[in-house]
């Protein structure tokens, strides 16, 4: 079998600590996009419920078992599940949702960084124009960080998750590091 590498090019995910800020690469999730097909909303909602797949509203992330999901565009969600159990997540979802949805594997489209800091605002206000202070936990949106389109999920007041383009994982981490160093 072929040996997988993380987006940063290592066998195991990396963690960077700068002051009180921790940036952790995540490598243990499978992703797929799920888009409802025309006129199949009811079928999808029903099948999703059975499958344990939440379908949250705009700008929202919702957790579930085994699937969590966030809204990315009208009638489309990004779905995540544990990689260990759902490596072929598209196949899992296809069998659960049938032809009510268009499903596309996205596991390796992105690099995921989880960022934790007791005070996130000084960091996030240097990374994104989103007004995160006023957003509830579970807020999810696409934004621009260091010229890159990035999905940002506000997990809590001290934790955010970023999904950036995988090919630019090193550039994105570099931007996160220099910004973290400028606010420690």
């Amino acid at each position, binding site marked *: 079998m072929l040996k997988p590498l993380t987006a940063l090019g290592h066998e195991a995910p990396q963690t960077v600590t700068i002051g009180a800020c921790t940036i952790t690469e995540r490598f243990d999730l499978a992703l797929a996009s799920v888009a409802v097909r025309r006129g199949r909303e009811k079928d999808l909602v029903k099948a999703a419920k059975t499958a344990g797949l939440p379908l949250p509203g705009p700008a929202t992330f919702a957790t579930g078992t085994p699937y969590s999901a966030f809204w990315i565009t009208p009638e489309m969600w990004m779905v995540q599940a544990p990689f260990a159990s759902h490596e072929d997540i598209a196949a899992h979802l296809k069998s659960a949702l049938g032809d009510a949805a268009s499903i596309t594997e996205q596991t390796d489209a992105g690099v995921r960084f989880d960022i934790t800091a007791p005070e996130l605002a000084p960091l996030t206000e240097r990374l994104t124009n989103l007004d995160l202070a006023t957003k509830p936990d579970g807020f999810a949106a*696409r934004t*621009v960080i260091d010229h890159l389109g990035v999905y940002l999920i506000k997990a809590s007041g001290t934790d955010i998750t970023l999904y950036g383009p995988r090919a630019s994982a090193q550039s994105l981490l570099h931007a996160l590091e220099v910004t973290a160093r400028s606010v420690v």
Partner: protein
Amino acid sequence: MIINHPILGPRDAQEFVYLGDASLIARPDGLTATPAEMHDYVYLRDNPAGLHRELWYHEQGDRSWLVVTRNTVTHEITQVELARDVARQMGRST
């Protein structure tokens, strides 16, 4: 500028790509349109000093195409709609 996205609320115009006159939605059928109709669709645009309906694409956001009604003199934005809804209102479907 700030565009008040119908779904996502106010977002910085920097996240959008501008296309131009929303009349681009009114595409004639290429098999039946006369050359003159097609020419007008492809090349003729109004350039008003005042309210202008124009297409903006939320490329760094949710990828929605929007119809933004903007005053080209003051930059005041008076209305923002999903282009998809506008297209449907114009009778476009499949």
